[in-house]
């Protein structure tokens, strides 16, 4: 797959076949972790976190350690030369001498692409502003594959903040490539999917079905995959609007009363209060396993980008 230098900046950097390959390898690693415990021995992952994100950083760190590799990096932007006005291009040139692969989280959109243009090692985008978060997308895909058997032909619903949620943007773009039967977008008017993104999707996939509704209850019985995101109070213009809507976007056992038995409930985590704790015990709730699977799909990604030789068939 990757003999030349490859990066993962956005989901579009991977073909559908490559995504499926990564997801399958991730599932294989999840089943047989011991087999892969040393495949990255002697390799170093640099994690460059210009914006704090403990969860994503730990997920990558854990992935590299589980492959037998080592880590360098920082999680505090104040400790880096960024503050001194050094260009990212210079930073990454130097990091290229210290590490074999790098993951980067940056508040500015497009920063990882800039790095990739100057890097001599593979760059993984660990999230850039509100733009892309491709390894979250891979995490979401591996979860759908594990629980639904395939990435295709599902009715996928997104609920919550669809305007600012980059995980939603990346996943919806990606699933559009996999013959999704229908997208259902559940959000308040104020937090609808950006019209430019909707337009780009429909321009590219004219047959795509996108339905927008205000409440989950109207559509819950159709859904195969329900992807929830957090609604933040500060996204609203006034408190009154927020309070009015707040409760209709909190997932309870009652709200999934009429859902399919095999529907799955996903969430990129962390959650605040948008899914009540009672839902955790429902067998449809897979969000904690989703976090766990994220480590394994990142392991698969690291080995692939490094060109580490492993036998996928086991």
């Amino acid at each position, binding site marked *: 797959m990757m003999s030349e230098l490859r990066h993962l900046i956005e989901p579009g950097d991977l073909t559908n076949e490559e995504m499926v390959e990564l997801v399958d390898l991730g599932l294989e690693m999840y089943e047989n972790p011991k087999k892969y415990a040393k495949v990255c021995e002697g390799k170093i992952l640099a994690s460059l976190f210009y914006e704090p994100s403990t969860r994503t950083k730990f997920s990558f760190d854990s992935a590299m350690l589980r492959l037998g590799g080592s880590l360098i990096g920082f999680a505090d932007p104040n400790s880096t030369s960024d503050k001194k006005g050094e260009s990212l291009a210079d930073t990454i040139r130097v990091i290229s001498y210290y590490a074999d692969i790098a993951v980067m989280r940056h*508040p500015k*959109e*497009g920063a990882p*692409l800039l790095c990739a243009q100057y890097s001599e090692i593979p760059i993984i985008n660990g999230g850039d*502003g509100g*733009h892309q978060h491709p390894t979250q997308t891979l995490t979401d895909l591996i979860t759908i594959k594990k629980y639904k058997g395939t990435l295709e032909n599902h009715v996928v619903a997104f609920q919550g903040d669809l305007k600012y949620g980059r995980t939603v943007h990346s996943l919806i773009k990606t699933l559009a490539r996999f013959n999704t039967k229908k997208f259902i977008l559940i959000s308040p008017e104020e937090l609808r999917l950006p019209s430019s993104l909707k337009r780009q999707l429909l321009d590219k996939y004219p047959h795509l079905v996108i339905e927008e509704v205000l409440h989950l209850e109207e559509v819950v019985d159709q859904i195969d995959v329900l992807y929830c995101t957090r609604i933040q109070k500060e996204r609203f213009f006034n408190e009154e609007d927020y309070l009015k809507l707040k409760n209709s976007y909190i997932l309870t056992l009652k709200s999934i009363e009429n859902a399919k038995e095999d529907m799955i409930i996903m969430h990129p985590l962390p959650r605040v209060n948008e899914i009540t704790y009672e839902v955790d015990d429902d067998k449809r709730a897979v969000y904690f396993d989703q976090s766990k699977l994220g480590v394994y799909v990142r392991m698969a990604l690291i080995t692939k980008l490094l060109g580490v030789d492993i036998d996928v068939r086991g």
Partner: protein
Amino acid sequence: MLEVNGIANGIVLDHMKAGLGLVVFNKLVDGKIDHPVVLLMNVSSQAMGKKDIIKIENTFDVDLNILGLIDENITVNIIKDGKLFEKQEVVIPKKLKGYIKCKNPRCISHFDNYVEPEFTLYSKDSLEYLCSFCDEITKYE
């Protein structure tokens, strides 16, 4: 009538609607070219009533991409040895470097000196361009 000599070698931009000459001058010429430039405004024209013309002497190294964004009807004449050597077609550029700034305030292109933002044409009708760094759509104005 005002006399302006023809040029021996260079570029003549003709059939610009009256008023557009200054727009083209500002976008294409101002500060970017140090060869002699003549801007003629409100020249009478049989077909157009009034038109503007720009003559740029002794250079062929001008990025004419921008013309397509301003008006596709502009005529580009390349003059060599006092004769019309070539008429170039004006088209809306598929790629743009410079000329526009990404409208996304969080885009890395506003923060790093190394960045050379490149835009890909998204819509010909509305002159919208997609930023290569952040995928935001920006309209050329």
